[in-house]
């Protein structure tokens, strides 16, 4: 126990020294429901935000040197942020979260929907909870949208993040759940194109092996240590598109919903094309 406390104090002090004065101003400006112990109903606490902020701002400013376009397109109040997913590890989520917190006016905390196996992982489970991430169930999403939060969704899910290098910038099949949720209470959808993440971890997906160990995917990287743990320092570019609004019955047949999802997908795909055309190099 002594070691744990000592470690926590040291890390806390280090984190404090890394945070600029801007951080506290931004944290103050966040609109969050919290109880007398400082927790929101999902276990998010401002006190834990600094750890995420240090990591996020390092990735955003120093490692991936992210360029963000169109952040002002994100409307106030409830919104679904829908982005392409890639890169084996969800750095794209962290960078989008960092953009919204560090550059957003006013700053916002993005709540992303994490895979349902995440709560079974020690440490990861509560660290994500404390920094505002939520288990990806429709009920959770609905509740947070009603509270006016910004929810990040990757409709490609595991299909997207674990796709092999050869399929970079080719959008995988989109799930339909996010559209039904958006229709339920007319939530605007902001499409986001993430450029860069698709090259951060070249890998092939060894599906039979993944099935053997019961994991959703098992990407093998040609670079030691052969598991894509460390991403390459590619340059990230984020494009936030104009908000899209949809009308209709959330309980419609799949083929009706598919048409609406296609609008979002096409919008992301065309932003990807523009982004790829504009960039001069993968790393700078």
């Amino acid at each position, binding site marked *: 126990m002594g070691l744990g406390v000592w470690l926590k104090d040291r890390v806390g002090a280090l984190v404090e020294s890394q945070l600029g004065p801007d951080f506290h101003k931004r944290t103050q400006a966040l609109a969050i429901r919290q109880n007398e112990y400082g927790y929101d*109903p999902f276990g998010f606490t401002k006190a834990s935000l600094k750890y995420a902020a240090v990591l996020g701002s390092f990735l955003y400013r120093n490692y991936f040197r992210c360029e963000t376009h169109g952040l002002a397109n994100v409307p106030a109040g409830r919104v679904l942020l829908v982005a392409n997913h890639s890169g084996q590890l969800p750095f794209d989520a962290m960078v989008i979260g960092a953009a919204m917190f560090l550059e957003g006016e006013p700053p916002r905390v993005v709540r992303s929907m994490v895979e349902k196996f995440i709560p079974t992982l020690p440490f990861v*489970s509560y660290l994500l909870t404390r920094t505002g991430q939520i*288990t990806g169930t429709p009920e959770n999403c609905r509740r947070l949208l009603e509270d006016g939060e910004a929810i990040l969704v990757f409709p490609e899910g595991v299909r997207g993040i674990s796709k092999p290098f050869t399929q970079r910038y080719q959008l995988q099949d989109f799930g339909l759940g996010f559209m039904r949720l958006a229709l339920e209470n007319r939530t605007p959808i902001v499409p986001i194109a993430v450029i860069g993440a698709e090259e951060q971890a070249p890998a092939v997906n060894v599906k039979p092996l993944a099935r053997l160990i019961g994991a959703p995917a098992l990407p093998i990287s040609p670079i030691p240590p052969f598991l894509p743990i460390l991403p390459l320092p590619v340059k990230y570019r984020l494009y936030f598109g104009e908000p899209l609004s949809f009308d209709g019955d959330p309980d419609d047949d799949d083929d009706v919903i598919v048409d609406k999802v296609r609008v979002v997908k096409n919008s992301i795909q065309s932003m990807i094309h523009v982004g790829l055309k504009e960039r001069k190099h993968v790393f700078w």
Partner: protein
Amino acid sequence: MKVVITGIAGRLGRLLARRLHRDGRFEVIGIDRRPFHGRPKDIEHVQVDLRNKKARDVFRAGDVSALVHMGVMHNPRQSEVEHHAWNIGGTTRMLEYCQRYAVPKVIVLSSANVYGPRPDNPQFLTEDAPLLGSQDFPEIRDLIEVDHLASNFLWKAREAETVILRPVHILGGVANAPSNYLRLPVVPTLLGFDPMVQIIHELDVVEAIACGLKPGARGIFNVTGPGELPLSAILDELGRRVLRFPHPVAKPLLGTLWRFGATSFPVPELDFIRFVCMVDGERARAELGFRPRFTLKETIQAVNRV
């Protein structure tokens, strides 16, 4: 108004009896095979097993206006057969009498644990969520069956107002798993897990039951307290020393302790300090008008009440 309380000799039963007795509008009769210590003089106590025919005699006169059924046994050391016979047998009898002698109000105290702690649970389960609590904890199957029996009665016996209450972890002088756990001098937790939990003060549960007695109230209700907190914040508030074990170590360790009778916590209880099992209490708020009176701090400190 004549109210029959089963399990009146337990901690919650006594608190409820006192609450209704003080109210003045209620005539309280208890059924419990245990003796009722500190019984106020004008509370009648029938000290029999629920399955005994003397229990039927309580209803026979036909003037019972409500049954509060909380006489459910949950002793992990008792065999499943014993549990089943007592809990299912007792509940069936009670519901049978209520129907035969036209009791207009039936309140069954269930628990939010019937949903079960699971990694893929939504943060807040509503009353229509499946009751999966026994999937990894087969020993509590009978508690879920009691809830099912009551739900069936709710739909079948339309002339009675059936209220099923599913409160979150009850804290106080009660000898239930969460209160016992928080009263440990050194509290073991799982390394790397710190789920959000909901707690409610024992007196707030009593108040919720009183709300359920109001005419017109009918249905299944999650009952939540003043809010939700990570387990670690509750242990901090109590100033407990914490010992963290990795889950792969904790599981066989607790299993061994359990086999040697050194602990009162069976292994599946570990999931309650690992995953979320939280509920949405909005329906009880809206339809029963129930509001918890105790704050988070008061509720946590209630484990020190005796």
